[in-house]
């Protein structure tokens, strides 16, 4: 019984251990970034670790909307990089970041189809063909919002019927909760086509899919803002990371991963 009591006390003592929720060590930098930045940011994280011995860069990649909510609920992030201005502004409104963030990259949408091309899609216009299985990101996700905008623009393009957007959306069989899930469904060959970012077609993905570019006038150029959080535990390293991302080598890394450089971004949206 004595042993039992001791065990019970140990159980009761457990909550004491839970006091501090994984407060990162001073040498840890926690970056919350949009899912579409996954590969590029991992590389930049390694680069920062290499130049700053003792520093560990941790990432949480998810839909920007989800990250914004997690940060609002007190998640221990130092840096927030969003795939659109909407969720950065949301974070700013809640007083979580100062200013509206700095634009560090741009991205554009493409259509992808499985390499086997089961629906025999020969161009963007075929996405409106009845019975084609299309997968897009949900409307709450930046990529989903851009997809709908692009489809609307294409409806006014020459060679596309005016009801193009409506037809394509009627073909949607799933609205995924983040853009990487769209990639997966096309890559697995379950969907006939999907709308994703150019940067999502990484080397490992491009083995499985074919890309159809969407011309500039009809494309939506996504602008990615980045900001250091007001309550960042490691504000110094957070600043290093933001600087690295905007530096020339950082921009090259982003480009190599299919993102467009920040240059020529809307001038009003830069630095607070």
């Amino acid at each position, binding site marked *: 019984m004595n042993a039992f009591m001791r065990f019970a006390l140990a159980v009761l003592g457990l909550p004491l251990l839970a006091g501090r929720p994984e407060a990162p060590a001073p040498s840890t930098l926690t970056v919350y970034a949009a899912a579409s930045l996954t590969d590029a940011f991992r590389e930049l994280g390694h680069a920062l670790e290499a130049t700053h011995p003792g520093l560990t860069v941790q990432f949480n990649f998810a839909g920007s909307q989800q990250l914004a909510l997690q940060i609002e609920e007190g998640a221990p992030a130092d840096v927030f990089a969003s795939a659109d201005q909407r969720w950065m502004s949301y974070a700013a409104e809640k007083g979580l970041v100062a200013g509206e963030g700095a634009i560090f990259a741009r991205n554009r949408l493409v259509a992808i189809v499985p390499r086997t091309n089961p629906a025999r899609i020969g161009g963007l216009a075929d996405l409106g063909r009845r019975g084609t299985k299309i997968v897009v990101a949900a409307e709450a996700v930046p990529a989903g919002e851009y997809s709908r905008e692009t489809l609307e623009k294409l409806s006014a393009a020459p060679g596309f019927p005016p009801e193009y957007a409506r037809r394509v959306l009627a073909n949607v069989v*799933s609205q995924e909760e983040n853009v990487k899930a769209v990639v997966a469904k096309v890559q697995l060959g379950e969907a006939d086509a999907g709308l994703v970012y150019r940067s999502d077609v990484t080397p490992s993905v491009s083995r499985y899919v074919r890309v159809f570019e969407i011309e500039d006038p009809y494309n939506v150029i996504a602008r990615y803002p980045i900001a250091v959080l007001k309550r960042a535990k490691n504000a110094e390293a957070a600043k290093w990371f933001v600087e690295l991302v905007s530096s020339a080598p950082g921009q090259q890394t982003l480009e190599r991963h299919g993102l467009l450089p920040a240059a020529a971004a809307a001038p009003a949206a830069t630095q607070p």
Partner: protein
Amino acid sequence: MALRALALVLGALLVLLLGLPLLSLLLRIPSGDLVARLRDPLILQALRLSLLTSFAATVIVATLGLPVAYLLATGEFRGKRVLEAFIDLPMVLPPTVAGVALLTAFGRTGLAGQALSALGITLPFTTLGVVVAQAFVAAPFFVGAARAGFAEVDRKYLDAAATLRAAPGYTFLRVLVPLAAPSLFAGAAMSWARALGEFGATITFAGNMPGVTQTMPLAVYLALQSDLDAAVALSVLLLLVSLTVLLSIRLTPSRLAALAARARRAPR
């Protein structure tokens, strides 16, 4: 005495752990909001789809699970332990993994998927796919409970039935199943609850499409990404529905158990 007090404290802690999150969910919702949300056709759609698919999954699991449970409870055969572990596997498998596994099996390019599509059956992105995903994760709960129920039935009733020259099928349906009914009900209830809450396998295998594959858990998750209040309201709704069904199923077997007990006493 000290032991008893300690047990009480431990028990209270568990109730707190389980109850507090649910209670705070109820407290967070603005009054009247729930009723307004209930009128939202999108939410009704998700709720209807959830109820439909989870009941369908339960029926499938119970129908296919009954013989397996019987076999496991009464038979001894080679590979029994392997079969047991195999059936329990979906319980420990992360649901997303279950979803990927289902895709590789029943997806368009999957092992069985190609044969299915030749028959004109498509599972990914369809309501049927949701049912399959739910049945996959819910099956172990029914088989486990049904098996325990069958094992508890006293052999002498089966022997008595055999002496009276009852056919094995008759004995199974008229003696064994009624005696194990409370366990079968409990198993079905657990399976149903698991199916209703299913998220990971569903979104991976069947995708997310309002009216087709967007069940309540998916709707809650999607709402959480844009509208926290809506997500809370949906969660409360789901909570109330599940609680009602679980309670009513709990109350039914106790009456059934009483009936079964009376039936058991009668022949003596």
